[in-house]
């Protein structure tokens, strides 16, 4: 009876492009966000009104918080737009779900009966795009900070092998260096795996939470529609904010980590 699908369903098609319910609402929400933010930014007053006050507090608070993570205002200024957009967009699209009566609205089309609304963050393609863009930006930051060779060297670490061979030519045999070399190589590969797993852990954490919330809400609503869904709804409310926070802050932390030099790199720069 319950129609639960991982993928969002298409509401209608524009020139063969399936416009799913989540995609549709994502576009609308984006436009709304833009309108509200630009409107507030255009009509900034020294003595703020209620809406400006809320946004000011939100932006300034987030900026200061991000600053405390990155530790430099220059970095924060560069990373903040992406991170804060992630946060505000995820939070708003998670909270929009709490407008009552949404799941009652459905649309009839070739695919059958399709709910008009669906939590935007339960669309994996959107989360995947957000995650992958964050990870790609992180890699770009890492390359620009460590240089292309430094970046590759982090994953394929053969420094100790080189030392070992150098010493071997000089007639010294040091097996400890060889062991260190293998360890570094292994750790480098683990780092590579770590980078890839970032994408999976980050995106499925958010997707899983929101999608699970959707499903649970639906199931509980079908089991017993009075009172019983309330605790789950409250839990979902908590999840909505916490997951947005976790997602954006983790992305920020990844970027910050990539933008920081390690001890030996700093030493190298100084000696050069």
């Amino acid at each position: 009876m319950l129609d639960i699908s991982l993928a969002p369903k298409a509401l209608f098609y524009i020139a063969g492009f399936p416009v799913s319910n989540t995609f549709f609402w994502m576009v609308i929400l984006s436009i709304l966000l833009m309108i509200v933010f630009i409107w507030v930014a255009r009509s900034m007053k020294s003595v703020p009104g209620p809406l400006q006050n809320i946004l000011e507090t939100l932006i300034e608070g987030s900026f200061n918080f991000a600053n405390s993570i990155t530790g430099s205002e220059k970095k924060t200024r560069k990373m903040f737009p992406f991170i804060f957009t992630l946060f505000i967009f995820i939070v708003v699209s998670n909270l929009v779900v709490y407008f009552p009566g949404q799941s009652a609205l459905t649309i009839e089309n070739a695919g059958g009966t399709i709910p008009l609304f669906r939590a935007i963050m339960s669309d994996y393609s959107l989360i995947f795009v957000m995650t992958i863009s964050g990870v790609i930006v992180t890699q770009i930051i890492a390359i620009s900070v460590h240089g292309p060779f430094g970046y590759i060297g982090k994953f394929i670490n053969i420094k100790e092998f080189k030392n070992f061979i150098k010493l071997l030519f000089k007639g010294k045999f040091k097996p400890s260096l060889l062991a260190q070399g293998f360890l570094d190589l292994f750790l480098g590969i683990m780092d590579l795996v770590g980078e890839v797993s970032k994408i999976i852990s980050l995106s499925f954490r958010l997707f899983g939470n929101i999608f699970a919330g959707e499903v649970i809400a639906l199931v509980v609503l079908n089991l017993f529609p009075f009172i019983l869904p309330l605790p789950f709804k409250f839990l979902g409310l908590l999840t909505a904010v916490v997951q947005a926070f976790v997602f954006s802050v983790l992305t920020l932390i990844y970027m910050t980590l990539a933008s920081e030099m390690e001890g030996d790199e700093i030493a190298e720069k100084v000696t050069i």
Partner: protein
Amino acid sequence: MKLFNALGLNLYILIAQLVNFAILVFVLYKFAYNPILDFLKDRREKIEKGVLNAKKADEKMEEVKIKEEEILKEAKKKGREIAELAKQEGEKKRKKIIENTKEEIGQIINQEKEKMRAEKGETLKQAKKEIAELVTLSLEKVLDIKMDSEEDKKIIQKTIKSLK
């Protein structure tokens, strides 16, 4: 592939989502975050400046107050000193003037006395001389003789002396 399909991952949709999200980030960055953050920074600086200025003004006020009090105190002290000095000076001058005047008066009195004495002497001398002549003349008339001798003159003189 099956997993991708189940999750609804489709290249077109992904590209569309990416474009949408990029537009959202760009527009918010350009037209919302930057102006708002700049505005907030400006305002924070303005407020900081205002607070600082107010503090500075307060400090200056305090300083001016203290200085004012000091100046007033100094002025009072100086005024008192000047008044005291003037009093002393005045007293001294007064005493001096009185002394001078006394002295002068004394001198004048002495001078006058001297003058009077001299005049008196002169007058007496003149009178004596005239009297003597008068007496001689009258005696001449009375006796009708000329008394020229030394003896006579002596007598006359004696008489005059006794007349005195």
